[in-house]
C-alpha cells in the first residue's frame, strides 16, 4: 500500500494515484487544492454564485468519478480546468449570457436574485474608505473582464489570476498555443482600453 500521512506535500500525480486506490483523504486533498481556483474561474465566467457552485460541483463529480481514467502524462490541473471551462462555456452558450452584468444576471428580477447573482467584492478587512475604493476598482476590473468574449475571459483569468503557464492553458482549453497567446494579447489590449480611466 502506498498511503502517506502527508498528503499536502505530495504531487498531484501521487494524490491521484492514492485516490485511484479508493483513499477518501486523497479525494479531500484534491478538493482542497482545486475548489478555490475552479470555483473562481467558473464564478467569473457565469457571474452567478449558486450556478457557479452547481457547475463546480458537477466538475468535481465528473473528475473524481473518472479518476481511474486520468492519464498521468497530462497535468491534473489542465484536466480539471478543461472540464470546468467546458462546463462554464457550455452554460454560457446555452443561456447566451456572453456579456453579463456585474450587478447581477439580466434575468434576475427580484432584489434577492440580483444580490445572489452579483459578484461580491471586498473582504471587509480594509478601512471603510479603502474598502469602498478597492470595491470600486475591483468592480471596474470585474466588469471589464465580464465584457470580454468567454474564450478571452478563460485565457486571461487562467494566466493573470491563476498564474498558469501557456502550455497548460492551451491544454486545458483545447486550443493551439498560438491561439492562446493571441487571445491573451487581445484580452489585455481590450482590458487596457476599458480600464484606462483607472490608471489616471
Amino acid at each position, binding site marked *: 500500500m502506498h498511503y502517506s500521512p502527508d498528503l499536502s506535500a505530495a504531487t498531484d500525480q501521487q494524490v491521484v494515484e492514492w485516490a*485511484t*486506490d*479508493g483513499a*477518501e483523504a486523497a*479525494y*479531500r486533498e484534491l*478538493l*482542497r487544492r482545486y*475548489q*478555490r*481556483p475552479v*470555483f*473562481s474561474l467558473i*464564478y*467569473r465566467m457565469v457571474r452567478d454564485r449558486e450556478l*457557479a*457552485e452547481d457547475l*463546480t*460541483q458537477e466538475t*468535481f*463529480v465528473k473528475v*473524481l*468519478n473518472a*479518476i*481511474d481514467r486520468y492519464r498521468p502524462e497530462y497535468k491534473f490541473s489542465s484536466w480539471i480546468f478543461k472540464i470546468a471551462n467546458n462546463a462554464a462555456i457550455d452554460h454560457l452558450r446555452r443561456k447566451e449570457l456572453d456579456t453579463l452584468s456585474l450587478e447581477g444576471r439580466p434575468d434576475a428580477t427580484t432584489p434577492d436574485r440580483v444580490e445572489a447573482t452579483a459578484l461580491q*467584492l*471586498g*473582504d471587509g478587512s480594509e478601512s471603510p474608505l479603502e474598502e469602498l475604493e*478597492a470595491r470600486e*476598482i*475591483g468592480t471596474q*476590473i*470585474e466588469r471589464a*473582464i465580464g465584457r470580454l468574449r468567454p474564450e478571452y475571459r478563460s485565457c*486571461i*483569468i487562467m*494566466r*493573470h*489570476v491563476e*498564474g498558469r*503557464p*501557456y*502550455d497548460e492553458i492551451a491544454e486545458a482549453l483545447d486550443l493551439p*498555443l498560438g491561439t492562446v*497567446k493571441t487571445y491573451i494579447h487581445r484580452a*489585455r489590449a481590450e*482590458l*487596457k482600453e476599458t*480600464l484606462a480611466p*483607472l*490608471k489616471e
Partner: protein
Amino acid sequence: MEDRPMSELTPAQEDPAIHRMLSTLPAWMPGPGFDNRVLARVWRPHPLWLRRVEGYWGELVETGQVWLIVGAFALGSLIPIIALTALVAAHTAEIGAFLGWLVTVGIPVAWAAVSAFISDIVSTVNTMASALLPNARAVMLAVVAYLVLLASCAWGLYRTMSAASATRSSLHDRH
C-alpha cells in the same frame, strides 16, 4: 533586459500593469460543506488488490475458464473421499476390530490418563498455594472476583463503543 521568449516570462513580467490589476482580484470559495456534497455523489473505487481479484474473476467468467476451475476443485475434493471409501471397504474387519478396541480399552485408558494429569496439576497448585500463603482460599476468591470485575468492565466498554459506532453510522447514513 534579457531577450527571453514570451512563454518563459512570468505573467507579471509580461504585462506588469494588467497583472497588477488582475492579481488584486479576490479568490472565491464555494459555500461550507462543499467537499461533503461532492463526495456524497462520488463513487470511490475499491482498493487495487480487490479490483485485481475482481478483474481476474471477471476474466475467468468471461472466458468460461471458471467452470474448468470449479470442476477441477470438485474432482480434487472427490478423490480423497473415494480413496477413503475404497480403503474402508477393503479393510472392514480390521477397522471394526480397531473401533471395538478403541471403545472398550483405548478411550477409557486415555480418559483415565488425562484426568489423572489434570488432578495432579490441580493438587500441585493447591499445595504450592497453601505453602506460600496461609489463607490461599481467600486469595483465590479475590483473584476470581477481580477477573469477574475485569470481564464486566471489558463488556461495558465494548457495549459503549458499539453504541457510539452505531450512532456514527446512522448519522453518516442520514447525511
